[in-house]
């Protein structure tokens, strides 16, 4: 399971759904409603970090609703970078949720905005944060092969 290949369009569709939700958090501003929605997104990222991007509810929607309408992908993608990107999303949203829970509600839309940039770029132009950071982290010894 750890080295499998996935359809690269799955994580991108998932990222577009997540980006819309994060935009909604920004619109809700520094509010309890925003905190709840960000907590929901955090749980989605937690699922993705544990099970990979294809194991999230967004991945499930892609498999059930989108994939059957598409042709086969030009090529498959390693599942590790998208999963790593889920971990980055988990970290960013966790900062917002924890600060928000301690009464710093302004951190909620700010964390959502940061995560939005990554999710939207992933969805629209395929920028993969995990791929971009992989070598930097190898160089600094943060991750091993």
């Amino acid at each position, binding site marked *: 399971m750890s080295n499998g290949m996935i359809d690269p369009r799955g994580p991108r569709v998932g990222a577009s759904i997540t980006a819309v939700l994060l935009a909604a958090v*920004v619109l*809700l501003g520094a509010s309890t409603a925003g905190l709840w929605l960000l907590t929901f997104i955090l749980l989605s990222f937690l699922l993705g970090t544990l099970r990979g991007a294809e194991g999230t509810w967004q991945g499930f929607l892609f498999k059930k609703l989108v994939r059957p309408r598409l042709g086969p992908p030009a090529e498959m993608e*390693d599942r590790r970078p998208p999963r790593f990107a889920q971990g980055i999303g988990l970290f960013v949203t966790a900062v917002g949720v924890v600060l928000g829970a301690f009464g710093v509600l302004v951190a909620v839309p700010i964390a959502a905005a940061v995560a*939005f940039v990554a999710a*939207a770029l992933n969805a629209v132009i395929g920028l993969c944060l995990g791929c*971009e950071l*992989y*070598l*930097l982290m190898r160089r600094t010894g943060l991750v091993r092969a």
Partner: protein
Amino acid sequence: MLGQVIALVVLVLGTAALGVWWSARQGAVRAPRETPAGIDWAASGIALEDRVTFVQFSAEVCAACRSTARVLGGLTGAGSGVGHREVLVDDHLDLVRSLGVLRTPTVLVVDGGGREVARMSGVVSDTQARQALTRISAAVAGPDREGQA
């Protein structure tokens, strides 16, 4: 609410600008870094062609590396004098550090003498790879023609 709407609009515009900037950089042929003395390509298992070699730094987890390898591989061939060597960053972290490679794929365009003459990072298109080759020809023909490349 108006404040939040403005914040979202600024956020979307900023993200779009970032996306345009990032996309424009993908595979763009850039000036070389000065090749550090004592780089021994052969010792690292990288055999250079006589004229030019695309030395591509790749990672196993990098999807853009595969399409880039296909493009560059398509430009090599018997008698072309163009080579393509793929280096896995995980096996050559020393080389990655000394050459200042920060992301995958990074492609160094190396002449027959082992000197870097251009570099590209991000997914490389066929047009960009050919552009890098003309730059090499210009550099060989003389620096006065470099401006036209």
